[in-house]
């Protein structure tokens, strides 16, 4: 029996058998899949691959920007002049408000100091260009052209001129990934401007938002404006997020079903502003006195001041 088992020597070197290779690669892919999904510990691998893919991404972006440039060229000088005129007028119109805003902010700060309330944080950040929307149909994410090299860190909020766009979730050396607020189960703590009620708005994954965990008898109306509440320590308070489009009250359920539409051009914009991370909130008071926590708390408080 042993003699028959001998295979003839191979005529050509063909490497490992295809089935063995297949098993190896499939097992490796599955391992990657599970580890990435469950443990999220493959950041370094992702960043390395992103660094290699980055040039291809930049090249892929070129046709689009070329078309944009060509269109801008064809639109002609007259349109530009008109635009310029209109913008100048708009600026003039908003100038009094802006000048008064500065004055008001100063006054507000002074009053807050008088009341011994912490000063409001100012919003500052950097403008980033959107490179492309990811092809993945299961998530709503965009890639911007600034990354670690520009000091972007995960968790930073992104806004456009109308409201909140999303949040930076992954940072690569030269680019970063923003998860839009419409991504499935992406949460933003909000406050209803009219009633002051606080809640959390969730993305549904289809371009719409949903206000969850609001009692059926709560004071919510169609058209209510939702702004960030700032309780999460990530978004500054007061940025518009969405407007309520539908309120469905059913006595069979404890909570009302409230749909909202995002205000920012969440799915169609060219530039976003990535806001600087907020100052660290003071840590919650330690529950049990231990040497470690008593060491850390004063240091953090000193920094956040």
């Amino acid at each position, binding site marked *: 029996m042993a003699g028959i088992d001998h295979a003839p020597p191979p005529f050509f070197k063909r490497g490992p058998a295809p089935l063995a290779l297949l098993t190896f690669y499939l097992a490796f892919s599955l391992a990657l899949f599970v580890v990435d*999904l469950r443990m999220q510990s493959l950041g370094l691998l992702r960043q390395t691959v992103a660094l290699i*893919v980055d040039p291809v*991404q930049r090249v892929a972006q070129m046709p689009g920007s070329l078309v944009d440039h060509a269109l801008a060229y064809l639109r002609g000088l007259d349109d530009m002049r008109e635009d310029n005129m209109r913008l100048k007028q708009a600026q003039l119109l908003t100038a009094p408000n802006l000048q008064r805003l500065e004055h008001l902010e100063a006054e507000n700060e002074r009053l807050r100091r008088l009341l011994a309330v912490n000063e409001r944080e100012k919003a500052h950040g950097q403008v980033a260009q959107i490179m492309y929307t990811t092809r993945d149909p299961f998530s709503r994410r965009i890639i911007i052209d600034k990354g670690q090299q520009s000091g972007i860190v995960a968790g930073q909020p992104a806004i456009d001129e109308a409201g909140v766009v999303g949040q930076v979730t992954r940072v690569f050396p030269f680019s970063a990934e923003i998860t839009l607020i419409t991504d499935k189960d992406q949460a933003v703590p909000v406050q209803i401007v009219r009633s002051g009620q606080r809640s959390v708005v969730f993305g549904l*994954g289809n371009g719409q938002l949903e206000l969850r965990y609001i009692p059926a008898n709560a004071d919510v109306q169609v058209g209510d404006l939702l702004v960030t509440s700032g309780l999460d320590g990530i978004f500054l308070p007061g940025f518009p997020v969405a407007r309520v489009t539908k309120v469905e009250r059913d006595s069979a359920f404890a909570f009302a079903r409230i749909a909202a539409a995002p205000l920012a051009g969440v799915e169609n914009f060219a530039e976003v502003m990535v806001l600087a991370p907020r100052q660290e909130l003071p840590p919650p008071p330690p529950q049990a006195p231990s040497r470690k926590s008593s060491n850390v708390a004063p240091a953090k408080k000193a920094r956040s001041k």
Partner: protein
Amino acid sequence: MMQPTFTSSRILLPVRPWFIVASLLFALLGNLLPTAYWPGIPDWVALLLCFWSIREPRRVGMGWAFALGLAMDVADGAVLGQHCFAYVLLAYMAAAQSRRILWFPVAQQALQILPLLLGSQVLQLLMRLVAGGDFPGWGYLIGPVLGALLWIPGTFLLLLPQYQPVERDENRPL
């Protein structure tokens, strides 16, 4: 003179390795173009990978599939391993069937490519559904159908550098 025929009796020049690499890179470029909001854009990398796995199974195989899958996973913001798994399986199936598929005329080849491309797309769909994603709509499955249709012009274009001029020579038997 080039003849746009695909009969298997036609003798092709050997493929240039750099052309394979360039076409795969070009496919990656195509996948990164900002076409996310147009439904039914085929997965160019899967299509090209399928093509070369069938045409040149000794040169393009599961290693290329894995590397390109990893690149797509990162560029797409997908879960790592999603494209890798699908592409590796696609490359294996394509290479396993390459001898049979090449026997057919190109239109019938396209019919046999369709289940391969569709299978790889459905596999990715299943993986994401297991991972807790939502069903993205039937438009997700239009891409492979379009990809299979593109097999016919694609074969012609990608084999262009390999066609040799048809010249009559009385002293040459072929």
